[in-house]
């Protein structure tokens, strides 16, 4: 029997290491059971972490969800020792249908094919699932031009946000003659609330290395960099292990697989700056400077890292490459729409019942991702909007839920495909507040180089803050629109050019909410603190004193069995009273 524990960041955060210790202990106490343990990356069902898979001698797999130490003991006793799976904790089984199966039914896994199935620290497990076969095919049977051609034909577009055709980009980087070129993997994943790249790096680092190697061969680079967020220590650790193993097996270094191709990789840790996801800023950061973007041209393809021609690709883009070379461009292009091919990984989060990592064919309607895969809202309340593309993206309202996921279709809504963050919101979320949240983020991450981005976003943030505080005026909306237009047009880099998007889309679809804040001094979602008031309904209050006991600022008074009252001058609107009241006596208005 094999016990496999999901130890991606999500699994560890949910207590995976304690579960692992418990299984270790159980295995060592029962040496006769013939059980072995290994680890894997994110299985995708983050909402069911900690996840543990048990594979029996016949190869049947049972995956358990929400495992803790106690459940671990029960699983060990019943399944590992007794051969009887514990049905009540099972979330997926290779022998029986499960109600969670709908999470997987509409997914197609190319990038995540090995994630959650292999031990990311074992190159043998990756090799057993075809890792580096694409590299071998490219190096031994194809010229660099043929590799570029194949990627062009596949229709793969960059998954880092801008969606530029990868083959085209490689062509540009191949063209210049130079004694030295670089290929860089952008693993900065700056969108706060997205974790696709992290999960791939943690779950299958070899797929990214393979893509980087093939890309290096295609453009003529012999050195690669992986620029990874410092906040991803597990990803960095596993990448280092993967690089070491790949070198030992002859996939990295000199004369790779006897073909005469040389390639080496270095990891650079970011230091916490969103703008470093932008290509020229990223290059400045690797060079040891402040991560400030510069004017283009010259483009990195001609003058990039250390002044040499360089190509930058996102983690997910690169993780597709090995598969494309191995299976051919047609197989990849079989997925997708007329203009956008393949699959896309999304990080489903927010008010979603089944949050996690999903990979779907491009062209699937949003409705299927949010409802069929994601199971709808976690609160059971009405779905209101989904935010895509993070700080550069926008909010798509419930009325457009049938929009299909495709670069062009999404752009038409004012949102973008983005890198894959998908935040679901329900009717309790205030759209003005969401717009303010993203603007606060971009404003504080603006590097300050250009005026429109530095000062323009600041002014927009001030206006939005004012509106959420109930101090907005009629001129505020036109002023926001004007500022947005100027910032988009005149900013130097993508950060400023896209910063107004969250405001523009919420204004487009939820203008009435802005107007309610400004005209009626009301927050329809009852989120903006300055605009809401908690009150106790004397008819419903039985005087149980629970709210008064729990109020952190002690602003609720009243005697036992008599209706209580809130002192509005002291209330901080934390909502604790409403959360603890068992009689529904507390209202927000």
């Amino acid at each position, binding site marked *: 029997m094999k016990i496999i524990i999901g130890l991606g960041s999500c699994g560890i955060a949910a207590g995976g290491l304690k579960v692992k210790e418990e299984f270790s202990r159980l295995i060592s106490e029962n040496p006769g059971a013939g059980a072995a343990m290994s680890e894997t990356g994110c299985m995708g069902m*983050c909402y069911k972490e900690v996840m543990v898979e048990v594979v029996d001698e016949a190869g049947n797999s049972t995956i358990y969800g929400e495992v803790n130490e106690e459940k671990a003991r029960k699983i060990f006793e019943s399944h590992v020792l007794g051969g009887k799976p514990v049905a009540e904790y099972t979330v997926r089984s290779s022998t029986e249908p499960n109600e969670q199966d709908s999470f997987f039914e509409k997914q197609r896994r190319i990038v995540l094919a090995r994630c959650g199935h292999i031990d990311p620290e074992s190159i043998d497990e990756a090799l057993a699932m075809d890792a580096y076969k694409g590299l071998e095919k490219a190096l031994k049977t194809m010229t660099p031009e043929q590799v570029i051609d194949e990627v062009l034909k596949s229709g793969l577009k960059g998954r880092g946000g801008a969606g530029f055709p990868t083959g085209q980009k490689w062509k540009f980087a191949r063209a210049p003659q130079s004694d030295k070129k670089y290929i860089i993997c952008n693993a900065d994943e700056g969108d706060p*609330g997205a*974790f696709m790249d992290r999960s791939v790096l943690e779950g299958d680092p070899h797929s990214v290395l393979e893509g980087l190697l093939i890309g290096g061969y295609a453009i003529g680079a012999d050195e690669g960099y992986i620029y990874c967020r410092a906040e991803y220590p597990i990803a960095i650790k596993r990448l280092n292990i993967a690089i070491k193993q790949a070198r030992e097996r002859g996939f990295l270094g000199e004369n790779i697989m006897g073909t005469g191709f040389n390639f080496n990789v270095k990891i650079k840790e970011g*230091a916490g700056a969103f703008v470093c996801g932008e290509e020229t800023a990223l290059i400045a950061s690797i060079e040891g400077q402040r991560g400030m973007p510069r004017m283009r041209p010259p483009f990195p393809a001609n003058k990039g890292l250390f002044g040499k021609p360089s190509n930058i690709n996102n983690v997910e883009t690169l993780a597709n490459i090995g598969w494309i070379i191995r299976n051919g461009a047609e197989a990849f292009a079989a997925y997708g729409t007329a203009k956008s091919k393949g699959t896309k990984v999304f990080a489903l989060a927010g008010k979603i019942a089944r*949050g996690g990592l999903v990979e779907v064919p491009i062209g699937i309607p949003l409705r299927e991702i949010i409802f069929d895969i994601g199971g709808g809202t976690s609160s059971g309340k009405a779905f209101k909007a989904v935010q895509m593309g993070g700080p550069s993206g926008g909010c798509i309202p419930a009325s457009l839920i049938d929009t299909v996921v495709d670069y062009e279709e999404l752009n038409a809504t004012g949102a973008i495909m983005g890198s894959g963050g998908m935040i679901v919101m329900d009717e309790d*979320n205030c759209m003005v507040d969401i717009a303010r949240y993203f603007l606060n983020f971009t404003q504080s991450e603006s590097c300050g180089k250009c005026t429109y981005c530095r000062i323009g976003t600041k002014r927009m943030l001030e206006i939005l803050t004012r509106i959420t505080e109930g101090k907005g005026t009629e001129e505020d909306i036109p002023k926001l629109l004007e500022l947005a237009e100027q910032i988009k047009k005149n900013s130097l880099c993508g950060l400023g050019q896209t910063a107004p998007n969250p405001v523009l889309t919420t204004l487009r679809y939820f203008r009435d909410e802005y107007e309610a804040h400004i005209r009626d001094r009301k927050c329809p979602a009852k989120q903006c603190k300055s605009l809401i008031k908690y009150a106790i309904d004397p008819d419903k209050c039985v005087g149980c004193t629970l709210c008064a006991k729990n109020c*952190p600022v002690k602003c609720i008074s009243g005697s036992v069995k008599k209706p209580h009252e809130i002192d509005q001058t002291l209330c901080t609107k*934390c909502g604790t009273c409403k959360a603890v009241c068992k009689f529904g006596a507390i209202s927000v208005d």
Partner: protein
Amino acid sequence: MCTKCCCDSGAYYKAFEDIMSECYHGNESDLIPILQKLQSSYGYLPKDIITRLSQRTGIFETQIMGVATFYSQFRLKPSGERTIKICFGTACHVNGSEKIADALCDELKIEMGGTTEDNKFTLESVACLGCCSLAPVMMIGDETYGRLTPDKARKIIRELYAKGDQK
């Protein structure tokens, strides 16, 4: 040199020397990795260490400060014994992280970014801790606390204080 504590300068600068011999290869591109190592060793970037780094590498002190202040990872002041990182990622935001932050600021009587008077806790905000399905989330040391409410967050801090008192 550090004058506040009892360490002798030899031991104090040893970490600096070790890091320089490991990470400095004479290139400006070594700067950020050096600063990262210095911070993890000293807990922050002390002024005198930056001066020493400038003298050693020939990189102007203003330029080093430019880099150190640009990236949010670098701290120029020491932090408390433990750092509480409240997630302000989007998933946590839509699930109410601001209320968690308000509660902890009130409980600890500090602002975000501040350190308590007894030097026990520093309160920091981070973007996405990577466990969005547990939102709202905070991290204290290596421990992650998920599905927080303002009340739960306060209780966690009180328990940590109570445990500390017992020791």
